[in-house]
């Protein structure tokens, strides 16, 4: 058997000889060897659908063209990837796709990183046949827009019916909110009308859309307006996972850490102050660990569920509201820091908090929804005013012709830019759990934790379990990596309510590093590299426990401990059953 697996198949591509393992497709072998084959509906996260028919290649001995994505290699196979026949068919298929996609490139957040646009340009330059984007009239001009909460915007006139969004919603996330209706050229992708189905705003559809038909609801204009407003002091705070992914959009390698470049670039865009949500994460850990210790002591509302992923919270509030009391009351990191900014920082700097505009740069589309939640207001103020996804941030940089690669790094502003390693790893699945364990261990045992790495909760596995010895107690924890695994864990809990003491859920595969607001493309390999980068940041920091973060200690001592009532408002929240949105049609 082993030999069979190791055996390589010999194939010829464009006259050159290559080898590939059995079971590989033509496309995979070509990608391994840097042979370009255009694709649109292909995505390594998803099953091969072979819908778009632009990856067609010629295989000797077969009378029809084959799709490279779905055709496995055979020994002795001869493949042509750019014969005249191939180019002719690709050209017409691309033109047909283009006619189903109303181009709104100048205003599209995906302008410059759109698969279809890339292909069009590549073919305009070097294709044998010149591809004409206007050979047919756009057929979807009058097709409607949809809005899912304040998070997702679906412009169906740009949809090329590749089905990636439906596939990811159905099979990867198991939410089944997006559906295909009708057939033939009347095929449409629609939000489910079922009362039992609702969008959780995770944004995986947006990350897997090749053309930007589904994307985040943009806040770019609002942010620009705030920056231009002289009365306002505009503060940016960046999420843990931003620094390890945005480099990709500027030609840097996957997982490149560009923290200080991001700080500097934000100032170039006109932000007055730049803070770091890693610090917010340290606040979250401290609050959450304290609550966990308390619940363990009282034996109440266990297992405790993490709440920093707003898509997960919405999932629970809609699909499993009877578990709401299990969610930690701790707010999420950027809401924590936003609250601290609009109270502690404003007071310290003698600024009217009404003149502060806080903008979070997030890997997430659901965060756009989270900031609107009424119960998160402090002193009747929204603590975070706008959320920009990482893609929106990159698009603002591109628009201003700021090349992040060339930007010289700067430090974050004082004092809200200091963080521990525990905060840094929040962006990876298992990170929140690990941070909380580091703190809760010391809190309960009052001993110093020596081995800080909880490797059992790291990694790309769907469900990660561990038993952690804390004093006499064996704490049973679980991590759901991706929302479909949360369902599995809740099902297990239904059978055995005492199965776990503490559960972390991240709705997106890989956690925030694979979030719905992250740069495109995202694949399993890319997620691994981004996560690895976060753990590297952690391992190189001196302070690796949230409760040892000097700023956290300082803010508690100087401010929060003195204003108990306000502190509660800043640090804790409530939840309620979520309703299905009445109408998804957008009139924007």
């Amino acid at each position: 058997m082993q030999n069979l697996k190791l055996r390589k198949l010999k194939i010829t591509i464009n006259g050159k000889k290559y080898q590939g393992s059995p079971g590989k497709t033509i496309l995979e072998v070509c990608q391994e060897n840097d042979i370009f084959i255009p694709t649109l509906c292909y995505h390594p996260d998803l099953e091969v659908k072979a819908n778009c028919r632009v990856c067609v290649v010629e295989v000797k001995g077969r009378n029809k063209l084959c799709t490279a994505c779905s055709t496995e290699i055979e020994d002795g196979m001869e493949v042509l990837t750019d014969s005249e026949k191939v180019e002719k068919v690709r050209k017409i298929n691309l033109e047909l796709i283009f006619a189903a996609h109303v181009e709104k490139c100048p205003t599209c957040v995906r302008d410059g990183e759109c698969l279809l646009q890339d292909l069009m340009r590549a073919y305009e330059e070097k294709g044998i046949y010149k591809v004409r984007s206007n050979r047919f009239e756009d057929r979807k001009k009058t097709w409607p827009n949809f809005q899912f909460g304040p998070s997702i915007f679906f412009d169906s006139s740009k949809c090329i019916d590749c089905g990636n969004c439906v596939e990811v919603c159905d099979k990867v996330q198991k939410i089944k909110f997006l559906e295909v209706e009708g057939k033939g050229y009347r095929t449409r992708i629609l939000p489910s009308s079922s009362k039992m189905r609702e969008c959780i705003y995770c944004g995986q559809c947006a990350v897997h859309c090749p053309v930007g038909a589904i994307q985040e609801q943009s806040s770019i204009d609002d942010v620009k307006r705030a920056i231009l407003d002289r009365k306002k002091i505009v503060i940016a705070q960046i999420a843990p996972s931003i620094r390890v992914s945005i480099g990709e959009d500027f030609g840097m390698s996957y997982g490149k850490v560009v923290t200080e470049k991001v700080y500097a670039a934000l100032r170039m865009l006109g932000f007055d102050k730049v803070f770091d949500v890693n610090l917010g994460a340290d606040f979250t850990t401290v609050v959450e660990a304290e609550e966990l210790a308390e619940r363990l002591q009282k034996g109440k509302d266990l297992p405790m569920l993490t709440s920093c992923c707003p898509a997960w919270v919405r999932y629970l509030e809609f699909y499993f509201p009877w578990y709401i009391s299990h969610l930690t009351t701790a707010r999420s990191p950027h809401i924590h820091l936003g609250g601290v900014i609009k109270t502690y920082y404003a007071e310290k700097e003698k600024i009217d908090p009404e003149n502060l505009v806080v903008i979070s740069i997030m890997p997430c589309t659901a965060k756009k929804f989270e900031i609107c939640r009424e119960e998160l207001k402090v002193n009747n103020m929204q603590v975070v005013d706008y959320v920009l996804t990482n893609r929106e941030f990159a698009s603002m940089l591109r628009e201003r012709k700021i090349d992040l690669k060339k930007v010289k790094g700067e430090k974050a502003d004082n004092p809200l830019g200091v963080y521990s390693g525990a905060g840094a790893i929040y962006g990876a699945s298992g990170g929140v759990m690990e941070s909380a364990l580091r703190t809760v261990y010391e809190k309960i045992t009052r001993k110093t934790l020596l081995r800080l790495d909880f490797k059992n909760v790291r990694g790309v596995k769907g469900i990660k379990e561990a038993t952690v010895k804390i004093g006499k107690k064996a704490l049973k924890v679980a991590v759901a990596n991706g929302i479909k695994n949360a369902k599995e864990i809740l099902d297990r809990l239904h059978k055995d309510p005492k199965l776990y003491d503490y559960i972390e859920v991240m709705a997106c595969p890989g956690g925030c590093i694979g979030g719905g607001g992250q740069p495109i493309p995202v694949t399993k390999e890319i997620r691994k590299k981004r996560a690895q980068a976060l753990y590297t940041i952690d391992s190189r920091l001196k302070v690796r426990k949230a409760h040892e973060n000097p700023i956290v200690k300082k803010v508690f001592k100087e401010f929060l401990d003195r204003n108990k009532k306000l502190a509660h408002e800043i640090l804790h929240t409530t939840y309620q059953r979520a309703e299905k949105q009445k109408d998804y049609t957008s009139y924007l």
Partner: protein
Amino acid sequence: MDILKKLEKEKLTGRGGADFPTHLKWKIVNKAKDKDKYVICNVSEGEPDVEKDRFVLENYQKEMVSGIKIAIDFLEAKEGFIYLRNDYYSKFSLQLKYWISDYPIKLVREEAGYIGGEETALIEFLEGKRAEPRVRPPFPPTCGLFGKPTLINNAETFYCVDLINRGIFKHTRLYTINGDVENPGVYGLDEDVTVKDALKETKNLPKRKFFVQVGGGAAGEVLGKNQLNVKVCGSGAIIVYDARKTDIKSLLKKWIEFFMKESCGKCVPCREGIFRIYELLQKPNTDLKLISDIVYSLEQSSFCGLGRGCALSISSLFVNVLRKSKAGEVIL
């Protein structure tokens, strides 16, 4: 001699249109080790002007059901299905139930239209999903309904299985002859009969200028008057068109409207391409060059047989029937 050997000896091929050797299909399903296996009889007959499966239901229902039972017994299948076109279901289901008696055979009413005749789309439909063809391989005999080995044969094939089992198979098949002919109908003729002989034997060979469409009234190949010495292929239908009476553009429109209605919408050439051909046909000066380009893509890169069928009828019409300009381009 078991049924498999008999099928092999009689060289029975699938009557649904693909002419795949029946015994090979049976062999693969038989060899598969899964405990659960399924048998499906495909009576979706969605192709216009083809009526041979209806003919089977009207005249040889008992034999057809018996063929399915033979398959179930031989393969030790868990369950059988008869997938019936909507109107066939309404008309024949009661009788079919009588013949099925206590066998584990379910009748399924077709809702998926023409694409539901494509065997993997049919399987998707039976699984409760959207009727769209699957990526192949794997093929249904190894991985079909619910991922289990599945035998899918056409109604007429099962009818033939019964005949072969009883040793009375005469190597005939059913042909639907339709269109501008004097004696339309379904005929049992030699399985290797040529188009010309089929028309002759049934006294249907027109005297006037004509062309034919072989295999189906939408996806069939169009042949000129001098190309008739070929075996009747596909689902065994011959549609005759009076060359002077037939308006080519209307004929094209009729086909394309059919495909546009029936396309599942999965792949680009079929979903977008067929729609664009339809659009082009609405214009007074139809751009036949552009239609040819789209047809080429349909032929070369459609996901399933539906798009290729559409390409076959149009391209063969262009090549075999239409006049050409001096530059070699077809003219309507």
